[in-house]
Structure formats: structure tokens, C-alpha cells
């Protein structure tokens, strides 16, 4: 067999490109990895030799090469991605096999594999390689088509490109046609030069463009499988998530800010882009409902909301500084708030706590039966704390309904914030003021513990989420009122009149995607009426538009989003809209032609009082 030199002038652009790419990727990964927090590195050590690693390998194959999740979004879009990723991957692997088959088991420099046909003069050639190349080219045709007619590939909008993206994308589009030309007109050096230059440019642009995701997704999958997550503060792991974003733009369509309010540059793809290139502004970081609709669809599974939250924390500069110490006036001793009233000479309202308690004590022998006993057998002093939260306090009908439900349940209830409570801390957390939010959480925790409650019920999903995710409430069970009511119904403690009234249900973001509670409210609704679902529901449900996570949008935008949501409910033919969040209720009720109620209101309305 003759000696092949494996060298020609035209390979230089390719070699330079590969070297730069390799150096940058190694530098980036090395740097990010070294800076991982100690706990994260401990997780890596702990889980390296475990089934997680095997699963990660499988996931890499399914997601990085086959793009399984994108197939789910749209098969044509999936085909396009698979053709590029898997097709190119196979070209490399089969190409290598081809080389080995032809040259035997010997060292061949990189360019030898890539420009195999040049160096062998095209005398040996596998048909499968041509098929693979045409496979990739079919993906390319779709990609070009998508740039101009994205809708046919299931995307109404695609991502706006950065300069690096444009360079990489243009060179990428040239690589495969040039390869086709070079391999078929092997004697024309210009084609080989073009092919090599296209590869070189692509490789140099790659680590600075969205195509960095091709490499980054692999370590991301492994690290994630080993249990590493982004948190409320930025960490080195975030880099793996940021650069694993291909800016595919799947997050853009579900975004209601884009759909109904006309914001075109705040979606997760743009947020991640801005953060990655260090040009994140507060306006972009703050303009997100954190409804979670995009996070659920991200094919790379990025923690989009968490990343945005920790960006907000970084951008926020307000020190906690005990600036909410004044709130202790309420939480240290809830009775003090009444004393304050006395000292300022204002009307004193007797604390309602005792009244409600005595009321429920007298109803412990409630004919609805047995609840006091069942609970007593489980816990010595079952006591429920009800936390309405700020928003419920502005919805007296929910409070009144809960009062009726509690009375019917016979439970011993302490009203945590009816005469004034402090915020749960989630809005502050959403603003990035984590430390201040912690102060507030700690104050509320003290308050709950001091009251000796065994169950904390809240009618506000915003509060619920922070109680579950961030509070440490030892020995206190935290329930959303929908769960509490569902439980009362299941235990036979509530007697309700069923009806055939058609009602539709709005999943609040914090309750559904946030806490995974979809069924409890539906069970409750099913026992008082007939539930009709809107087109987008459960994990796909729309946001009401008034999310506390958004600090930017104005009233008109909120109304626009609420109208769109309202229209979806009107289309169901339901008589009323039921939700389980006071804020959603206000937001939707503002514009909807249908009456909008909280779950508790519907239940209280259907209570059998006799």
C-alpha cells in the first residue's frame, strides 16, 4: 500500500479551526468545572460510577443526536435536527470506519479522515457515505426553508441571530454542499479549499455561537444526571446550562408576553443569550411571568426560571440589612397588632382568632361527623392555620367561603393573617432579594410555630409554593385549600350538592406547574359540577398575565393577556370560570364575560347547610 502524505495546503483552514475549537472548548469546560461549588463536585465524585452515568449516556444519544424531544414538538422540526446532528455524527463515525477499512488499523491524522476522498483520490467509496451526506443535506434544505417559513415546522417565530450565530450558520450551510461538490468533482481544488474554509470558519465561530450547545449539552446531561442543579444564586453549573441552549426558539411561541403583549426580546432564549454574552439588562431579566410554560417545553431541559431568578439576585443590590424588622410587630405576637391600634387611638377590633376557635370547638360534635375524632386519633391537638396571603385579603369572598368550609369541617382554625399579616416572601424572592425574603420567611415560620399548628392551609398558590420550597416547617403539613377541601370531601366531612353546571378550571401557574397540583381542584370541581377543560390546560395551561414574577409589564399588557385567557374559557361553553388563586381570579375576572370564582366560593355555595 502506498504511503499517503495526508497533507495538502487546503487543509490548513480546517486544522486551524479544529485547534481553536478544541482549545476553547477545553478551556471553557475546564474553567467551569474547576469553579463548580464543592457540593457539586462531591456529587460528581459520588455518582460517577453509578447507573446515572449509564442513563446519561443513553440520554446523550437520545437528545443530543436524535433530538427526541424536538420530534415531540413537531416531527418535521425533529427530522431537521436529527438529520443535522445524527447525520453528521454518522458521517464522522462511518467515515472513520471507512478509513479503517481502507487503510487498516493505523494512525491517520484528522484531516485524513475528513478529506478521505481527496487523499485516496476517490477510488474507494462507500455508498452509505453518500446516502448519509444526502440525509444531512435534506436537513439543510429544511433549515433554509425554516428561516423563511418557520410556521410549517411548527414554529410561529424563530430566534433572532447574533453575529456569531450568523457566521456559524452561514458556514454551516456551506459545509455540506461544498463537501458534495468536492467529493464529486475531486479534481477541482477550489471545492476542497471551500469545504475546508467552511469547516474552519464554522469551528472557530462555534464556541462563540449558539452551536456551542452541540458540545455543552453532553457534560450538562452528565452533571444533571449526577444530581447537580442551578440554585437561587448563580453558580458555575449555570454556564453548562447557558451554553447548552441552542436558541432553537421553541420557548418563544408558548410565551404569552410574545403572543398577547408583543414583547419580542425577553423570552428565555434571549434572556439566556443576553446573560451568556454579559449584556443582560434588568428589563429583560425582570420581564418574565415565570409561568413555566417555556421551561416545560425546552428540549434541553434547562432550568429557565431558576436561571432567571438567580440573575435577578445578581442584579439586585439591596442588602437585607434587617430592613423588614418592623414586620416583627406582627409576627412576634399577632395580638400586638391590636395593641398597636389601641395606642394610636384607632378602633380596636377584637382578635377574631378566639371567636373562630370557640366556634369550631362548639362544632366539634358536628353531625357531619367524626372528623374531630379521626384527627384526634392521629395527632394529639390537630390545629389548622389558615394563611390567606396578601391577595386573598383583597378577596373577601374567598375568606368568607373558607370560613364556611372550616365551620362545616369542624376543624380548629387559627386565622394567621386576617387582621394583618406580612407577605410570605415569595414576591421578594422573585425579585432576587433572597436574603430579605429569607428574613420574612423566618418571621412567618416563627409565627406558625408559636401557634402550634399541625396543618397550614393557604388559598394562595404563591404562598403555597414558597411554604413548600423554602420554609422549614417541621411537623407542619402544608396544604393548598384545594387539597384540603379535596381531602375533606374524600373523608366525607363535607356534604356538597352536586349539579350539572358547566364550569371550566384555570390552572394557576404556581399551583400547577409550580407545585404539581392539577388533580385536587378538579376532584373538588367534579363533585359540585361538570368540569369542561379549555384547549390549553394542566401543564400547558395559560398564565393569567398578572404574575407577581413580572416587574415590567404595564396594565394594558396584563389586560391583553387576561383577555386572551378569558377568550379561551369562553370558548369552552362553561357558565363560570373557577380558579384556585386569588390573583388569577382578579386578573381573569377583570375582563372575562364569565363570572370568575375561586374554588372555595363554589364549594361554599354548594355546602349542604342542613
Amino acid at each position, binding site marked *: 500500500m502506498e504511503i499517503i502524505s495526508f497533507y495538502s495546503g487546503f487543509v490548513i483552514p480546517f486544522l486551524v479551526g479544529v485547534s481553536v475549537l478544541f482549545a476553547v472548548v477545553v478551556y471553557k469546560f475546564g474553567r467551569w468545572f474547576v469553579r463548580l461549588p464543592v457540593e457539586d463536585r462531591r456529587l460528581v465524585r459520588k455518582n460517577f460510577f453509578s447507573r446515572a452515568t449509564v442513563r446519561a449516556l443513553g440520554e446523550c444519544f437520545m437528545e443530543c443526536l436524535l433530538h427526541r424531544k424536538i420530534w415531540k414538538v413537531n416531527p418535521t422540526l425533529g427530522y431537521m435536527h436529527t438529520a443535522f446532528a445524527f447525520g453528521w455524527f454518522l458521517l464522522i463515525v462511518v467515515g472513520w470506519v471507512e478509513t479503517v477499512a481502507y487503510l487498516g488499523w493505523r494512525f491517520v491524522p484528522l484531516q485524513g479522515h475528513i478529506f478521505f476522498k481527496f487523499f485516496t483520490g476517490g477510488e474507494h467509496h462507500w455508498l452509505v457515505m453518500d446516502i448519509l451526506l444526502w440525509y444531512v443535506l435534506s436537513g439543510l434544505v429544511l433549515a433554509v426553508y425554516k428561516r423563511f417559513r418557520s410556521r410549517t415546522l411548527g414554529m410561529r417565530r424563530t430566534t433572532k441571530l447574533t453575529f456569531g450565530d450568523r457566521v456559524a450558520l452561514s458556514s454551516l450551510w456551506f459545509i455540506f454542499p461544498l463537501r458534495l461538490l468536492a467529493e464529486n468533482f475531486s479534481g477541482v481544488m477550489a471545492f476542497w479549499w471551500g469545504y475546508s474554509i467552511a469547516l474552519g470558519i464554522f469551528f472557530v465561530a462555534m464556541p462563540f455561537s449558539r452551536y456551542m450547545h452541540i458540545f455543552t449539552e453532553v457534560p450538562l446531561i452528565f452533571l444533571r444526571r449526577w444530581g447537580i442543579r442551578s440554585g437561587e444564586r448563580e453558580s458555575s453549573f449555570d454556564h453548562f446550562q447557558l451554553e447548552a441552549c441552542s436558541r432553537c426558539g421553541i420557548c418563544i411561541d408558548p410565551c404569552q408576553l410574545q403572543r398577547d403583549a408583543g414583547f419580542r426580546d425577553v423570552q428565555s432564549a434571549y434572556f439566556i443569550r443576553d446573560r451568556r454574552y454579559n449584556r443582560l439588562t*434588568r428589563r429583560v431579566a*425582570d420581564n418574565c411571568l415565570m409561568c413555566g410554560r417555556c421551561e416545560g417545553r425546552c428540549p434541553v431541559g434547562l432550568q429557565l426560571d431558576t436561571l432567571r431568578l438567580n440573575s435577578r439576585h445578581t*442584579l*439586585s*443590590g*439591596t*442588602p437585607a*440589612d434587617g*430592613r*423588614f424588622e*418592623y*414586620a416583627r*410587630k*406582627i409576627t412576634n405576637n399577632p395580638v400586638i397588632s391590636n395593641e398597636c391600634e389601641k395606642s394610636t387611638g384607632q378602633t380596636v377590633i377584637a382578635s377574631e382568632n378566639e371567636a373562630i376557635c370557640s366556634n369550631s370547638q362548639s362544632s366539634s360534635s358536628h353531625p357531619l361527623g367524626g372528623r374531630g375524632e379521626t384527627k384526634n386519633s392521629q395527632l394529639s391537638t390537630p390545629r389548622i392555620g389558615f394563611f390567606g396571603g*396578601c*391577595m386573598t*385579603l*383583597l378577596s373577601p369572598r374567598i375568606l368568607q367561603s373558607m370560613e364556611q368550609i372550616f365551620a362545616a369541617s369542624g376543624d380548629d382554625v387559627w386565622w394567621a393573617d386576617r387582621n*394583618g*399579616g*406580612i*407577605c410570605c*416572601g415569595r*414576591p*421578594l424572592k*422573585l*425579585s432576587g*432579594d433572597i436574603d430579605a425574603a429569607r428574613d*420574612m420567611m423566618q418571621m412567618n415560620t416563627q409565627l406558625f410555630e408559636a401557634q402550634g399548628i399541625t396543618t397550614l392551609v393557604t388559598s394562595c398558590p404563591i404562598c403555597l409554593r414558597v411554604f413548600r420550597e423554602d420554609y422549614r416547617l417541621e411537623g407542619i403539613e402544608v396544604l393548598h385549600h384545594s387539597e384540603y377541601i379535596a381531602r375533606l370531601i374524600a373523608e366525607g366531612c363535607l356534604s356538597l350538592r352536586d349539579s350539572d353546571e358547566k364550569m371550566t378550571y384555570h390552572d394557576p401557574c404556581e399551583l400547577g406547574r409550580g407545585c404539581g397540583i392539577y388533580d385536587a381542584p378538579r376532584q373538588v370541581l367534579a363533585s359540585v359540577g361538570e368540569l369542561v377543560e379549555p384547549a390549553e390546560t394542566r401543564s400547558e395551561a395559560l398564565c393569567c398575565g398578572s404574575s*407577581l414574577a413580572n*416587574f*415590567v*409589564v*404595564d*396594565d*394594558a399588557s*396584563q*389586560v391583553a393577556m387576561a383577555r386572551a385567557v378569558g377568550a379561551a374559557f369562553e370558548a369552552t361553553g362553561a357558565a363560570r370560570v373557577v380558579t384556585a388563586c386569588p*390573583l388569577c381570579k*382578579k386578573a381573569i375576572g377583570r375582563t372575562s364575560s364569565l363570572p370568575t370564582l375561586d374554588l372555595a366560593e363554589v364549594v361554599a355555595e354548594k355546602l349542604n347547610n342542613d
Partner: protein
Amino acid sequence: MAIDFGYSVSQPRAVDLDRNDLSLAREIVREMPEFSACIACGGCTATCTAGNLTSFNFRLVQTLVRRGEYAGAYAEMNKCMLCGKCRLVCPRGINTRGVVRLIKRKLGDY
């Protein structure tokens, strides 16, 4: 050189629009024009948890800022828990939490 006579010259209490530097106020309003739609109904302050426990008065502080009276506004705004009740009651639909954060950003340490 200053001699201490045991008292100092009282500063005028008047809001002096000739002297106050309104450029920051204009900048803030430009970023959030809805901010100047306030009709001073006081609903925000009435419902405000912080306002009922401290001297914090959102209506007053944001008005002061619009008049170029920035002193102390940042510290006052820091009492806000961002709970959003004020936004719910505002008859003009002002993004009150956005206003709080904007003022803090312009006057504070973001």
C-alpha cells in the same frame, strides 16, 4: 474656618422646583410613563402592609421623587415587601411594584 455657634442654619422646607434637580425624576418617568398617571387617591398606602406598620407611604414617596425630592426615598422604598396589593387596588392600573424597583434602581445600589 466654620465657627460653631451652637446652632446651624435651618434648611428651607419648601419644595424648591427652581433648585431641585428634576433630571432624574424625568428619567424615571420616561422609563415608566404610567408612573405619572397617579391621581393620589392613596389606595396603595391604605392597603400597604409596610405602610400600616411604618412611616412608609408609597404615594407620598413616589410623589416626592417626581418633585425631585430624592433624599430618603431609597430607604423608604426598601420597606416595600413587593407583595403587590397596591397594584391590585390602583384605579389607574399603575405597575406600582415596578415603580418601587425603578426608584430603587435609580436612587440606590443596583
